[in-house]
Each structure stands twice: as C-alpha cells, then as structure tokens.
C-alpha cells in the first residue's frame, strides 16, 4: 500500500509542466480561437517531441509503455494549460483501444500504433454518450461506435458538420458515416469491452483535466486577489474572499485522491474501475463548477471580461460538465454499486480488486 507517485512520474510531470508553461500560453490559445481549425501544427510537434504521443503505446510498437497512472498526471497538465490538441483521444484512449484489439487486427495495430507513437496520426473518437465528435476535422482516423462494434474510418469517408461550443477551443462535429465490413475493426462482442475501457479512460481523462483546470483558476484567483486592492488593502485579505477560495481548495483536496485511485484501478483492470472513475468524475465536476463560480466571484467584474485569462479556463470547465456522461449518468453507476443488495459496504473494500 503506497499512495504516492514515483520519482520518475513526478520528474516526467515537472518536465512537461515546464515546457507547457513556456509554449502553451494563454495568448496562443486566444490566437487559435480565431483560426479555422483551432489546432496548431507546432503544438502537435511539441507534444510529439516531448514523447507524449508515445507515452502509453506498448514498447513493441515503438512507444514508452507507460500506464494510466502516468497519463493521469499528464492530463492534469493538459487541463491546467488548456491544451486542446487531440492528444488524449489519440495517444491515450485511442492507443489503448487499438493496443487491446484482438490478434486478427495485428496489421492494423502495427501500422497505427507506430504512427501514433511517432506523432504521425491524430485520432477522434465517437461514442453515443457524446452527441458530437471532438477534433474530427483534424483526425486522420475516426474510431466510431456502431452498436458496440468498433469501426475505424478515415476522415475522407465521413461528412462533418461543425457545432460551436461556448468554449471556442473545442471543435465539435456531427459525423455522418456508413459502417461497412471494411471499416469494422471489432465485433460487438469484442467491442463491448473495448468501449467500456475507452469510456472509463475518457471519463478519467476529463476528470484529470478538470483537476488541472481547478488548480489553474485557483492560481489565477489567488494572484488577482493579492494584487487587486479595495478599501485600502488587497481583496485577498478579506475573510469572505479567503473563504470562497478555501472552499474550493478543500473540495479539490478530497477529489484528487479519488482521481488517483481511479487511475490505479483502471491501470490494474480492477473490477470496480468504472465505479472509481465515476466517483472521480463526479467529485471533480462538482469541484470545478464551484471553482468557476467562486474564482469568478472574487475577480469581480474583471472575471466577466474577455480580457482576463480566467474566461479561457472557466469556459473549459463549463464545457466539460457533461462530456463523456453527465452527472446523472455517473451517479447511476455509483447507485448501481452502492445500493445493490450484494455489495458489502466495508472499509476493507476501499481498494479491493
């Protein structure tokens, strides 16, 4: 029993953090809002150079073979810095799904896992929980769900209709496509497990990004309230302002352990991984909603402006509120476990596989 990250994991995070801090600046995110694709070849090259595209691709396919536990730290940084390149869908969720394909898809795996590892392919993922597909416009390949079957469809074979999100960074598309023998990668029987894993991994990724986003808006609010003065002193010295931010810090402190447990459960194929992922998702969605509200409030009218960076991260929080399942969906998964007659509610089960 050891609930801490390894030195290696923390070193990798420190490295990525310092690169993102320099290269993924709010000004760049704002510039990308105004572009057609909203995506940046330079940023994609950056994440490739950092090895992020190869992170969890198995070593035999040229990747680093790291796990969900490493990824959860990366996804927090993705959230903190507001990166919206299709990194998570490609190199975490997509790579894991492809790596888990049966032997019959060996040739497909060879080609695509290598491309992913080398940053030569971008993926988008379509699942009935999400009405639209993010980043479909820049994906080389779309992994699509068709009644639990897994289909792999090149972008040339789909028709896309853009829908604007309140977060201008998020590029969402309705996808029209025709399933066929040629596109099917896995049958419904095989696909059911693959999609269950992809769903849990995606939910975990959303939760991790929310964790990073909460830290970001807190950091912005702490800085702002230290500088902004009213009634002759920094507004951060007023008790009401302190308590608004302390409330957020408390919630975050108890959401993060749930996030990390979920990563471990998923990495280890724990039978309750879905429950643990939903727990993390629920806790972080609530924390993030509170964080957006309270950090906005302590910013006063400045928080309502386009000018301050706060808006970039608040909007991401709001936009992610119901991606990969809303509160009702995840609460139902919790209820299915907690309220089942067969469940033993005993603290010795907290980590039980």
């Amino acid at each position, binding site marked *: 029993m050891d609930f801490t990250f390894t030195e290696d994991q923390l070193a990798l995070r420190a490295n990525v953090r310092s690169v993102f801090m320099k290269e993924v600046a709010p000004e760049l995110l704002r510039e990308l809002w105004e572009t057609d694709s909203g995506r940046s070849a330079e940023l994609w090259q950056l994440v490739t150079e950092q090895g992020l595209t190869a992170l969890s691709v198995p070593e035999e396919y040229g990747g680093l073979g790291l796990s969900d536990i490493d990824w959860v730290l990366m996804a927090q940084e993705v959230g903190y810095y507001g990166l919206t390149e299709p990194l998570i869908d490609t190199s975490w969720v997509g790579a894991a799904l492809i790596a888990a394909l049966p032997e019959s898809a060996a040739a497909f795996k060879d080609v695509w896992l290598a491309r992913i590892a080398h940053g030569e392919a971008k993926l988008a993922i379509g699942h009935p*929980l*999400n*009405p*639209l597909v993010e980043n479909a416009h820049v994906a080389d390949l779309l992994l699509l769900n068709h009644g639990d079957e897994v289909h792999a469809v090149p972008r040339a074979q789909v028709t896309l209709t853009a*829908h*604007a*999100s*309140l*977060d201008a960074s*998020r590029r*969402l598309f309705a996808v029209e496509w025709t399933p066929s023998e040629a596109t099917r990668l896995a049958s419904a029987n095989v696909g059911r497990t693959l999609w269950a894993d992809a769903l849990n991994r995606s939910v975990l990724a959303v939760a991790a990004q929310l964790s990073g986003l909460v830290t970001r808006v807190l950091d912005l609010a702490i800085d702002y309230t230290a500088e902004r*003065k*009213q*009634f002759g002193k920094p*507004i951060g010295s*007023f008790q*009401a*302002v302190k308590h608004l931010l302390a409330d957020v810090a408390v919630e975050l402190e108890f959401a993060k352990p749930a996030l990390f447990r979920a990563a471990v459960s998923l990495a280890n194929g724990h039978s309750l991984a879905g429950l643990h992922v939903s727990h993390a998702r629920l806790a972080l969605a609530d924390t993030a*909603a509170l964080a957006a*509200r309270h950090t*906005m*409030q302590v910013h*006063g*009218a400045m*928080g*309502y*402006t*386009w*000018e301050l960076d706060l*808006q970039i991260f608040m*909007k991401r929080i*709001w*936009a992610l*509120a*119901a*991606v990969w399942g*809303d*509160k*009702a*969906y995840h*609460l*139902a998964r919790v209820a299915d476990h907690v309220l089942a007659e067969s469940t033993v509610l005993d603290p010795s089960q907290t980590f039980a596989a």
Partner: protein
Amino acid sequence: MELDYTDKQRAFRAEIRAWLAEHVPKQPLPSFDTEEGFQAHRDWERTLFEGRWSMVTWPQELGGRGCDLIEWLIFEEEYWRAGAPLRVNQNGVFLLGPTIMDYGSDEQRQRFLPRIASGDDVWAQGWSEPNAGSDMAAIRTKAVRDGDHYVINGQKTWSTRAVWADWLFGLFRTDPESSRHHGLSFVLVPLDTPGITVRPIRQLNGETGFAEVFFDDVRVPVENRLGDEGAGWSVAMATAGFERGLMLRSPARFQATAAALVRLYQANREQADRDPAIRNAVLDAWLRAEAYALATYRTASRLIQGGEIGAEASTNKIFWSELDLKMHDAAQAILGAHGELVASVPREGAIGSWIDGFLFAQAGPIYAGTNEIQRNIIAERLLGMPR
C-alpha cells in the same frame, strides 16, 4: 391585507396585454450590444413611448401614466410574459429618471426627462473606476470647476451601454482635497463631448455590453450637475437604491425564466429524471421566483403607504442573483451534453439561449455591488451587527 387585483388593475393588465400582442416584434431583436441591435432597441423604445408604455410610473405630463408600483409590477409581468425586447434605456428609465425627479431642478426635469421617455437619449452608467469597484467611495476622476464648466479628467469603467449611448451619468470628484464619499458631485455628460474616448470591454460572450470611458479635459456645463456640489454621494445612493432594489430586476423576469425552466423540464423529463435532484431544483426555482414576486408586492404595498426602501434592496440583490444562477445551472443539467452548444437551444422570451442566460447569470452576484458587499450591508444595517 387584500390580495385581489382591483377591476382597474385587471383592466390595465388587459390593456397592456392586448397592446403587446400587437406590437412586440415577432422575431427577437439582435443584441443591443451591436450597433444594429442598439438601433433596433432604440426604435422599440420609441414604439413603447408612442403607446405611452415606455415609463408607466412617470407622470402623465411626461408621457407616462402615473402608475403606482402595483401597476408597474403588472406592466412588467405582461412585458416579460410577452417576450418583449430588453430595455436598452434601463439606465435612463429606471435609474436616472427617478433620480432627476427627486433631485433635479425644474429646468433639468424639462430638459432630460422627455428625451429619456422618448428614447432620444439613451444613458450609460459612470460609477466604477479601475480602483473603485466595490469601494465606490475611492472614486478619483476629477471634475474641476472652471467658470461655468467642470473640466473632467480621469477614467470610468464597467460603464453599461456606453458603447452606443448618448449620455453618461456618474460621480466625479469636484473637491480635489476631499476623500471617500465627501466632495463628490453627480454630473451628466454628453458622450460626444470632445476629449471623451470610449473603449468597449468585451465580456464573456464576446460582446461589448460595457466600456471604459476616458476623460481628457472634457468640459461640461455646471448646469449638468444634479443636486448640490459635493452632495453627489447621497444622490448616487438614491440611484443605487433603485438599482439594487425594486427597479433593476422585476420579479416577472425571473418568473419568466422559471416558467421556461419548467417547460424545459417537462419537454425533457425522461432525460432530466435520470438525476432525481433535478425535479427538486426546478420546483425550487419556481417557488423562489414566486417568493421574489410576493416580496416585491409586499414592498410595493409598503412603499405605496409611504414606507421607504431600506436594506431589503440588498436582500433582493442576493436573492435574485443566486436564483438566476440556480435556474441556469438546472437548465444546463437538463440539457446535459447539449448544454455547451452555443446556438442549438434557444428559449422562449427575450433572453436568448440558455447558455447566453447562463453566462449572463454569472455577472448577477457581482454587478450593482457584489453579493459580499450586500451581505455586509444586510449584517450592519438590517441586523445591526458591528462594523
């Protein structure tokens, strides 16, 4: 205690309902934060004025109807029920107008009120400054007396409607030796005066509902001062009282949102009931909107009998702003994954889509005095707690 409407009140309701049914634009107007939308809303103010509906509480001789506050509430109920356009001249009609009636000279009343009523003058607010937000007494923008003029230098910010408005009212420091709420004067400034620069502020939704206003040796005649020199603070407090209190947010606005929320819930009940707490949130919203209406009728009754508005203006501000947040949170919960989409979920009424309302609601606990400041006021003035 008599909670039935009189026949006269019923007739009044019927009259405005009929008029609105005929005149409210079938298509929502473009946002008044665009040039085109501003003009369209100004035209709508003129239409209202022609029907003598632009400021029903104003006296007959000014084009109003001399309505009491109960009739005003009825008017607002029908106005929101009809989904009529937002009032681009809210600052003039609800805030400055009553202030001029109380504090203006006869000449000022003649000069300004008719043009507010007709929509010829649309007004911007000039309260806040970069370092005077919640702490309004920290105002620094100077108006220095030079013969028959004030010469204004400094900067205002968060000036609502200033991007397209004709005039600005605000507080300026006329006594350079003074501090805090002493030595301020309430001055009315034409926005086309040389030396004024208006810089729009983009807000969360990308539009420009307010602006920074820079003053560089701006000369304004002394007769544009409202009230005595140095007495601006008490004039402004009266205006701010209207703002936080009865006039800024009529209950009908929130009752309209609550009713829309109930309909949204009913239309998506299967989806919504997956989270059983949503039904409670919808019912709670409806009850709170109702409570807000009841409290307003109670205050209106009290004011009609000669009472004064007090710290309940602060309780109002907190109540409606938090209600508005809760209602939009509930709507977003019902909409689920569709909630983030900008264009897809319009709602009835004038406020635009749910996500527009969600963004706008975020500002509620902040503007017109943050809710933290309101809580201080309630604790100190209503409850008598120590400063």
